[in-house]
């Protein structure tokens, strides 16, 4: 110690300890400890039991030192109790060490006691037994080693074969798309729609397995993925909801209500990728929920005609003779392969999609309430219900608010609309094909809903397009609203014939109107035009439209008669100028005198012209000059 003494203080580094690192990287520090806190912290770290066993050699000095320390510490701590345990331990060790010291002294002095080693008989050794025991333990050890080695080897193989597809990576991928939780040693997942608002009783718990644990060595390479899922048996297989709209004889067709299972649906192969397996199982669960819901409603809802639930099939009447059948097809691959005759499935994809959509809407409603405003309003009420009290809504308004449509009712409405739309389409197409003159043209609007669509029908005659008859059909659930050219509205029921009648009647009117516009252009005079005339013979259906025209000179009268059943007729009458003399003073012109009398029918087929309007145009042009 020749050098001048330098004071070295020994203390904890002045470095703030980190208490917490936030998500944004910010660190929260702890304030540095004060001297006394530091000391007490260090003192807590001392394990006094350890000291006792290790440092038996120099008992007295250590013990004294400790007691000194204790004395020194006492004034530091105003409240003694945190040091109580320390003091007690020290005291105990002091006592023990004193005793040990005494014993050692006694032994060393050999005044009162002598210690001698006790002689023991060497244990008898049986060579054979020993060998057996050793052998056994060696075998056990060897087994452990070999399984360990095997496992290592397998992992090695996995690692080398495809590093990407190891189990943990797969698990991470799985975790991104599915809910997982760890229960003891197994990993369980959930594939039900409960978290999305479903209240279906059936759960969808699956188990995540590691394929390498299951597979024998040889199969490792053939496995696509090192992760596999085990799906509950009731969700295995493939399912879908088959929706079919079919024409039946007037009574409900019960014979079709048998368990049908298309064999060609195909199953999910056992080694399919887990994502596909889970998706298919989830779909099975969804279909089951959907069908259960529909079946429950079918039993509860009191319709005009009862719905029928037979096995996995729901039957209900849409229109007389039209039946909707909803079938839950669940093919697990365990059924006997029934060779059904190649039954043509009229599966309606649109309605199936609507069903899925409707159930998802129900789920959505279960989960999303209308938000309360102000924020302390009661949760779970609709916006209108909240207003019911303050706005003093009447009884009927409240009842109306409560009513909601079941899934089955909604799908029934959609089906009705779909059937009606197709029927309308067929009627229009048939008429357009069968009636060449005039031309019928339908424009379907592309903007329609599942419950309403509209079509505009234009009736024109070729070459005379300036005169057209327009019709707008609004197809609803079970009625068709027709808005006619003159703004009249009429409502048709679902029967085909009503629409056919109406269009045919409109065609008759179209002819009459075209002829009237021709008359205007050629200077003819319209004597009378009756849309619904009561004249003529009785027809099976439809009404007759009549037009009478007089030529510019007034010497020719044409009478046109159009009926959907008996067709178009044209009659002509030429006036005899000699009759002029007999006109009474009430008749202002000679043409009025010739409304009645002998008309001659013209054979329209023999006339020249492309179509009816064209023929009459020709005829009128010819007669104008005559």
């Amino acid at each position, binding site marked *: 110690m020749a050098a001048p003494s330098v004071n070295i203080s020994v203390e904890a580094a002045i470095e703030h300890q980190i208490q917490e690192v936030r998500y944004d990287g910010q660190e929260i520090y702890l304030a540095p400890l004060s001297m006394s806190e530091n000391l007490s912290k260090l003192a807590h770290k001392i394990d006094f039991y350890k000291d006792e066993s290790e440092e038996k050699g120099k008992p007295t000095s250590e013990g004294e030192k400790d007691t000194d320390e204790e004395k020194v510490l006492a004034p530091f701590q105003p409240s003694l109790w945190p040091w109580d345990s320390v003091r007690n331990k020290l005291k105990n060790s002091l006592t023990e060490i004193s005793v040990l010291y005494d014993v050692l002294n006694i032994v060393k002095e050999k005044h009162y006691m002598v210690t001698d080693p006790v002689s023991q008989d060497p244990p008898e050794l049986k060579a054979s037994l020993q060998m057996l025991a050793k052998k056994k333990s060696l075998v056990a050890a060897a087994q452990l080693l070999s399984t360990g080695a095997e496992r290592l080897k397998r992992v090695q193989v996995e690692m080398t074969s495809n590093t990407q597809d190891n189990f943990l990576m797969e698990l991470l991928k799985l975790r991104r798309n599915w809910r997982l939780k760890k229960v003891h040693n197994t990993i369980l997942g959930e594939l039900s729609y409960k978290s999305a608002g479903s209240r279906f009783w059936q759960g969808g718990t699956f188990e995540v397995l590691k394929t390498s644990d299951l597979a024998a060595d040889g199969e490792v390479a053939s496995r696509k993925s090192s992760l596999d899922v085990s799906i509950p048996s009731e969700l295995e297989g493939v399912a879908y909801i088959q929706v079919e709209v079919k024409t039946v004889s007037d009574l409900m067709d019960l014979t079709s209500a048998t368990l049908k299972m298309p064999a060609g649906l195909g199953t999910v192969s056992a080694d399919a990728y887990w994502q596909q397996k889970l998706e298919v199982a989830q779909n099975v669960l969804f279909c089951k929920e959907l069908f259960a819901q529909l079946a429950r409603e079918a039993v509860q809802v009191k319709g005009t005609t009862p719905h029928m639930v037979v096995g996995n099939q729901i039957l209900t009447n849409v229109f007389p003779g039209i039946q909707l059948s909803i079938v839950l097809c669940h093919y697990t691959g365990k059924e006997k392969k029934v060779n059904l005759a190649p039954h043509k499935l009229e599966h309606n994809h649109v309605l199936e999609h609507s069903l899925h959509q409707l159930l998802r809407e129900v789920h959505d409603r279960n*989960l999303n309430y209308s*938000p309360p*405003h*102000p*924020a302390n*309003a009661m*949760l779970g009420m609709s916006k209108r219900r909240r207003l019911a*009290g*303050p706005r003093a809504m009447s009884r009927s308004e409240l009842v109306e608010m*409560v009513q909601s449509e079941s899934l089955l009712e909604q799908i029934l409405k959609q089906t009705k609309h779909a059937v009606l739309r197709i029927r309308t389409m067929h009627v229009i197409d048939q008429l357009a094909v069968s009636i060449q003159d005039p031309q019928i043209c339908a424009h379907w609007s592309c903007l329609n809903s599942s419950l309403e669509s509209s079509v505009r029908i234009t009736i024109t005659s070729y070459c005379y397009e300036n005169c057209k008859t327009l019709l707008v059909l609004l197809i609803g659930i079970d009625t068709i609203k027709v808005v006619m050219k003159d703004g009249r509205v009429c409502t048709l029921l679902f029967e085909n014939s009503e629409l056919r009648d109406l269009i045919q009647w409109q065609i008759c009117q179209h002819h009459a109107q075209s002829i009237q516009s021709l008359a205007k252009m050629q200077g003819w005079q319209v004597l009378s035009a009756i849309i619904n005339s009561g004249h003529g013979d009785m027809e099976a259906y439809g009404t007759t439209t009549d037009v009478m025209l007089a030529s510019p000179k007034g010497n020719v009268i044409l009478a046109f008669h159009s009926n959907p059943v008996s067709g178009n007729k044209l009659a002509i009458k030429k006036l005899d100028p000699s009759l002029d003399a007999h006109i009474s003073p009430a008749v202002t012109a000679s043409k009025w005198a010739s409304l009645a009398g002998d008309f001659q029918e013209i054979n329209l087929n023999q006339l020249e012209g492309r179509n009816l309007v064209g023929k009459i145009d020709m005829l009128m042009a010819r007669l104008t000059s005559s």
Partner: protein
Amino acid sequence: MEAAALAPSLKNIAPQQEYLLQGSILDTHRDVLLHRLRGLCDNAERNFEAFSDYEAVYVLRNSSTAQQSQNQHVTFRVRHALDHSDAPDHIRYLGQAELGDRSRHTLVRACLDVACSSNVRDFLTEMGFRIDHDYVVKGHFFHKGRMKVTVYKIFRLIQPNKTDPHNLEPLGQSHLVELSVVAPLGQEQIGEDMKNFAEQLKPLVLLEKFDHRKIQ
């Protein structure tokens, strides 16, 4: 059909209780909490549901006994949504808060929410109520099942009775976070659910039952 429709409106006079947990979060960290809540709550796929309410607190004192006991007064809180003018006004009556022992996880108090027509302020004044104080709360709303979570900030009105945005002054630098359920008394399961939910918001926000009497 009719009877079933009308029954709920007449029956729900059963006393309702509010189970409440409260906490606060600094303004700078609010968005983190909002995103966490969006992930945890039911209306996850929708945007944040914002609300902006004006609340006025009305007090009715018994005029003759005013000197003897200050306790004899009734407080009604009247709230209406500033951003939804068609929503009804609400009178809220809150009972004395019960903290309970350690085994109870939430604060419980009687709670009565009554929707009413918009002339409620005049009507209460007419009844003898006097306005005590008023403020505006703005924030966001979430729900998980029947649990309601609100994250909001209180604004003071610089001039009384004016709720336009220029007249509002934010109070403090943090948002209040409330987790509440209104349900009939004696459903202890709610407290458990709420505690579990509050656990999931740690360490962002610490939801606890606060004794309001101590704060006052």
